């Protein structure tokens, strides 16, 4: 087990990258603490798999260093780094039994057969594979194959980290849920560093203590799921996490208030101060979850035209409009609000964010 530091990592798949566009990863620094459960989240093609392969050593980064517990391993091959990696497509050795599959990484390391048998037995026990040990691996279902892949990592008790590259893509939805829980349990039991790559926010937010959000080869934000939800550092984070994503409206600052079209929204003092000094393009952001219905005399509330109202079971999703700007609000089911009417809304001060050129202030 190890703390993993990535310093100034950049990677391009092109031999002689000329512009920024040629890089799959652009200059990033990330620290993965020992024993953490991390999610690496981002849209397809943002560089997640590249980042993961750089950690495991399948790819040598064009620039920067990878450190395991402070030791530079950038030029080491995967075998020397002792990493476990599970791929999107379940990889098993078809001609071998489940037992031999699990034993494979140990036998390759020339571990005595007696020790191999013991370790494989333990791992199979842990993963509920004991009854399948003698079966040929090729006839098994995708989820069991994926568990075997995981087992090939766990069977080595000294792995530095377990990297999971969208491991649930080809798994049935129902089994997916069980498997995710299993992963979480294994993490809690062994406190192994786990990095879980996914483009599915639910998967990321339920699995991880820490989420790293990657976009266009940059780390946009790293933090707990709550932090990413409540204080997105970038408009993309706000938009990518949450369903629907954050409301963004161009705004002007006037004293301690933000003006969106006709509406005047009060801001906390420190935020107002920062925003008034900002010179870039300003946007006001608020999560639909935090928008509240208000009455005539609620301080800081404003009037808006209610557009669509969708009843989504435990809440209603309201689309409203101030001037030309639309926003969405999740309103509790008890609230009476109807299409085409005028209604008052409140954006609570502590949940309002101002973004300057897409970055949170």
């Amino acid at each position, binding site marked *: 087990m190890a703390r993993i530091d990535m310093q100034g990592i950049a990677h391009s798949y092109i031999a002689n990258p000329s512009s920024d566009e040629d890089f799959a990863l652009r200059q990033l620094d990330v620290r993965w603490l020992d024993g953490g459960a991390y999610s690496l989240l981002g849209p397809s093609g943002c560089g997640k798999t590249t980042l993961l392969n750089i950690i495991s050593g399948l790819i040598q980064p064009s620039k920067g260093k990878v450190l395991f517990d402070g030791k530079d391993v950038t030029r080491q091959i995967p075998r020397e780094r002792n990493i476990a990696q599970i791929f999107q497509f379940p990889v098993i*050795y078809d001609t071998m039994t489940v037992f031999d599959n699990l034993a494979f990484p140990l036998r*390759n390391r020339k571990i005595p057969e007696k020790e191999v048998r013991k370790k494989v037995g333990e791992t199979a026990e842990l993963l509920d594979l004991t009854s399948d040990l003698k079966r040929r691996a*090729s006839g098994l279902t995708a989820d069991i194959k994926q568990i075997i892949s995981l087992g090939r*990592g766990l069977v080595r008790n000294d792995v530095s980290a377990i990297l999971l590259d969208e491991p649930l893509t080809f798994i049935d939805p129902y089994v997916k849920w069980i498997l995710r829980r299993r992963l979480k349990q294994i993490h809690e039991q062994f406190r192994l560093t786990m990095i879980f790559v996914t483009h599915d926010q639910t998967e990321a937010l339920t699995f991880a203590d820490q989420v790293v959000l990657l976009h266009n080869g940059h780390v946009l934000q790293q933090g707990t799921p709550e932090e990413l939800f409540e204080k997105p550092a970038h408009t993309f984070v706000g938009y990518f996490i949450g369903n629907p994503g954050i409301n963004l409206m161009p705004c002007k600052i006037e004293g301690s208030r933000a003006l969106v079209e006709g509406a005047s929204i009060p801001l906390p003092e420190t935020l107002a101060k920062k925003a008034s000094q900002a010179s870039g393009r300003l946007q006001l952001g608020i999560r639909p979850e935090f928008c509240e219905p208000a009455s005539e005399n609620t301080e800081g509330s404003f009037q808006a035209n209610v557009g669509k109202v969708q009843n989504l079971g435990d809440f209603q999703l309201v689309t409203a409009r101030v001037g030309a700007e639309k926003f969405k609000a999740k309103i509790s089911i008890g609230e009476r609000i109807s299409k085409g009417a005028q209604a008052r809304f409140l954006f609570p001060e502590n949940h309002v964010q101002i973004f300057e050129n897409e970055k949170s202030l």
Partner: protein
Amino acid sequence: MLPVFIVVAFNSIIPFMTIFNYSVQDIFGPGQRVFVGFEWFEEVLNNKDLHAAFFRQLFFSFCVLGIEIPLGIGISLLLPTRGWSISLCLVLLALPLLIPWNVVGTIWQIFGRADIGLGGAVLKAVGINYNYAGNYVDAWLTVLVMDVWHWLPLVILLCYAGLRAIPDAFYQAASIDSASNWAIFRHIQLPKLKKVLVIAVLLRFMDSFMIYSEPFVLTGGGPGSSTTFLSQSLATMAIGQFDVGPAAAFSIIYFLFILLICFCFYSAFMGDGSNEN
């Protein structure tokens, strides 16, 4: 059903019926025929010359497979996997496949001559007394080398296609599991090549078991009968001596034997993976 029946009728049942018809009759001329039952079959099965040709043929085919399959796998593993050199290699490799059989025979016949052929002259220069026209080992080896030269590329191309179809994740996982190159070959590449290898083995077996033009052009089956393989015996019997009865019986036995061996190969390859889909 009907279209299938028509196709099968044209490409096998009707020609086969002709052969079967000949094989059970003794035909002296138009309108003069005698039903002889399985006499021709008995005669063919007891023919000593044919026995010799059969074992010669069998040995030849197994030599062809024994050389072409391992060598084909080996070379396909060495081919480049990226860049412009792929196309170059594939085109160069495919060239022998485009040459007609009898031209291959002619090429090697001249190439192997000590007086005007490069190959023969070189061997003579280094002191090897090589003469395919006089020495039966030389003749036999020349036919074998010719076949390998002509058909090895097919095996290479098939294996190369099989190798390229293996997803990268397998190699990555093997690298993570610290597998040696041998372990990668043994547990990933070879099992994944199984299906193309079945095709390669069957094609090369059938083809080499029916070899005709090359030895015929090279030495006409000689010296002696050292390179007289089954097809040539058959051709001599059917066209040379016009013994259509025994030739037909022989054809049927020949066909059934190829079918049997192919079935054995196929079962042996696919048998151990019966629970795979």
